[in-house]
């Protein structure tokens, strides 16, 4: 069983990432179930997508992960990564974007949320298993892609490049092409290339 959690802030594009993974699993012939956050939380709140694949031929009964069972967490925002950490299996991995999104509550308070501090705390949490953590310089990569909306594909491609998923780059390209409108395929292929190049030079 392969359990993946995708998390971010409402509006960041987590749903497409979950769809792409489901498509890739389906093309491998694995049973797959996903679950989405839809409703009030989409208005700038914390959102989570669950993806579960029976990659050893198991039946997937429920769409939601149990705690300490995620093989991979893909986070679009560092505090959201930290929020779902209890879902990560001890041997599981985390790919997270570095850029923080300030909630209004933090801007109002005298103790604002500092993204850099959160990223440092995540690094500390993985200090005894650094290979299981990848922090993506999303600002730099998305500038190279030329479109901020490609964050989801950059994160997915980084996870594949790091070997966190039993999927190949070709699996990913095919799944993306099946999930986005034809006119966006080229942009997303470019996003995958940018993420792969960054991983190679890391």
């Amino acid at each position, binding site marked *: 069983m392969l359990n993946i959690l995708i998390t971010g802030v409402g509006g960041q594009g987590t749903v497409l990432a979950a769809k792409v993974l489901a498509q890739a699993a389906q093309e491998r012939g694995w049973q797959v179930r996903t679950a989405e956050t839809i409703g009030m939380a989409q208005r700038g709140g914390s959102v989570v997508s669950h993806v579960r694949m029976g990659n050893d031929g198991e039946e997937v009964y429920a769409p939601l992960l*149990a705690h300490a069972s995620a093989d991979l967490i893909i986070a679009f925002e560092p505090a959201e990564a930290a929020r779902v950490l209890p879902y990560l299996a001890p041997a599981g991995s985390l790919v997270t974007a570095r850029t923080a999104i300030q909630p209004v509550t933090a801007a109002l308070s005298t103790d604002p949320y500092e993204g850099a501090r959160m990223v440092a705390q995540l690094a500390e949490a993985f200090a005894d298993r650094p290979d299981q953590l990848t922090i993506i310089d999303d600002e730099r990569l998305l500038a190279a892609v030329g479109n901020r909306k490609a964050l989801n594909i950059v994160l997915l491609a980084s996870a594949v490049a790091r070997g966190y998923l039993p999927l190949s780059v070709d699996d990913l390209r095919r799944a993306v092409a099946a999930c986005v409108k034809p006119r966006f395929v080229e942009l997303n292929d470019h996003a995958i290339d940018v993420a792969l190049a960054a991983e190679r030079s890391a």
Partner: protein
Amino acid sequence: MTKKLLMGNEAIAHAALEAGVRVVAGYPGTPSSEIVEMVAKERAAGRAEGVHVEWSTNEKAALELLGGASYAGARCLYTCKQMGLNVASDPLMCLNYVGVKGGLVLIVADDPGPISSQTEQDTRRFGSFSKVPVLDPSTPDQAFAMVKAAFELSERYRTPVIVRPTTRVDHASAFFDIADRTRARDLIDGGFVRDPSHWVIFPRRAYEAHGEINERLPQIARDYASDTVFAAFNPLYGPGLAPLSAPDAVAAQLGIVAGGISAAYTLEALRLVEARAAACGAKVPAYRFWQVGTPYPFPEDEAARFAQGLERVIVFEELDSVLEDALTLAAGRRHLAYDVLGKESGDTRDRGENDVDDIAARLVRFFGLEEALAADDGVAPVALPQDAQLPARPPVLCPGCPHRGSFYAIKRALGKTPAVLCGDIGCYTLGNAQPLDAVDTCLCMGAGITQAQGFSVVEPGRKVIAYVGDSTFFASGMTGIANAAYNGHDITVVVLDNATTAMTGAQPHPGTGVTLMGPKNEPISIEAVLAACNFKKIVHADPLDLDAAIAAAHEAIFYEGPSAVLFESPCIQLVRPQAPVEIDHELCTGCKRCITEIGCPGIGFDPAAPGPKSGKRGTAFVDASLCNGCGLCVDVCPFSVIVPAAEAAGAKSDAAKEGGAHA
């Protein structure tokens, strides 16, 4: 056939189309909204032939319309969220007595948690209250099968049938084989057949009909066991999750019963517990697990067979203790010697959602394996440092949301005048959050307008404001409007007209004139409705033009008698964003007024970035990936250092271009 990833709600729509549904109607409400949308999409694509689909004005209108179509022999699908059925309860109760002809299936989506609702009411109870059969899917796949079966059941017994998915079924996805084209089934008997003794309900007919209902319910409960289609919704499992053909195939003292998504969680939890037991060399006692997918009428004969020889039964279900109560009743009625553990006994969660972790922990106790499974595997989980603090991230009004301007204008117009601010259902409930803090009440659809009248009667010294969205206005605001004028209540209705039903994903409504069938009809004017209801003071403003908005609010609020402000500006989901505003770092004083007055997510504050004018305070900054350039903050900044998109474009054309790329 095509294989497609479908959300539970989308699968429900496809199942209804494959069952030949001819008329589909509902009112948007999370978690049910995607069903009608998917039907409309299939119809618009030319793949669903002969179907009529609409967003009705509200749930009562939808169900009554479908009642008529069903009398004429059409298969009909109704959709709503749990509280929507409260609005349609009047036609539902009566329809069951009159009976239907074309299959009438109601999808009523419950919301355990609740995640996007005011209540945790359980529609299975509505089934027993209205004496209407209920099917309860645990997965999107089962929902797909149940919708088709529900149409058959509805026509077999001429009863409406409820299918009750919950949020985690509605919004979970799986792959489905779906028909490439569907066609609405022809009308039974070619159309409506007059028969006043049947279709006109009178007390004498109601008495007879009650008897017919009482006869058919036990028959339906028997069908749930004997009809293989329905029996498949109540599967039995033994140790190792092996399917059981009959309860006595496993000698056991322990029984597990679950309904809805809890049945899927229980299967996962059993797999987890058995794996952990195997790893520890512990033995899981023999058990039987029964999923009840047909909670009403409860298949009590099946329950009694399941319970043979059992000493204890634990029940996992969300919302109410429906299965627990039914099993307890069966034990008493049949003198069966099993104990029932569940919500009422304090052995399972009494509210909110269940999950795999909680059910697994309770099963470990139920099996008496706490000690055997206590040892962990020695690998420490990844944990944040002790001092790590996570920022709260509640939902907020979007950057650029016109409601922000409306709330702020009302507050500014009121100043220190004592007032009660009645809210309603929609995105604008979020106006209660800091710093706007502009909503004092929220009850149910349309209640803001009528509750305001109650305040005005008993507290004449306070101004009373009633916010209402454009879709809510039509759904259930208009009766309150008539009441205000008729009884002369001094309230100010603030219509937050963003030209859509925003919270549920931007559905059209009577004020837009846009229909799901293609042609656009003449929009119904909210102003004309108010004027027809004798509102003598009606003012308009663009809520993002702060001075005009405050002036309009002031004029209406301080008018004696029923008055209205129409704040008109489209939802940001409907329009392209403008270039982000800019804050001049050199001039920002760090006063934070832009944050503490309107709380837009597009503006942050960096205490580590003091500017020449801010002393040690730090400065505000614009998150260009979020700002949509509405410009409300430009009017709020007391030092005029926030520059609107147009001026920024003039001053720094390169920067504006970069920002505009986000659009």
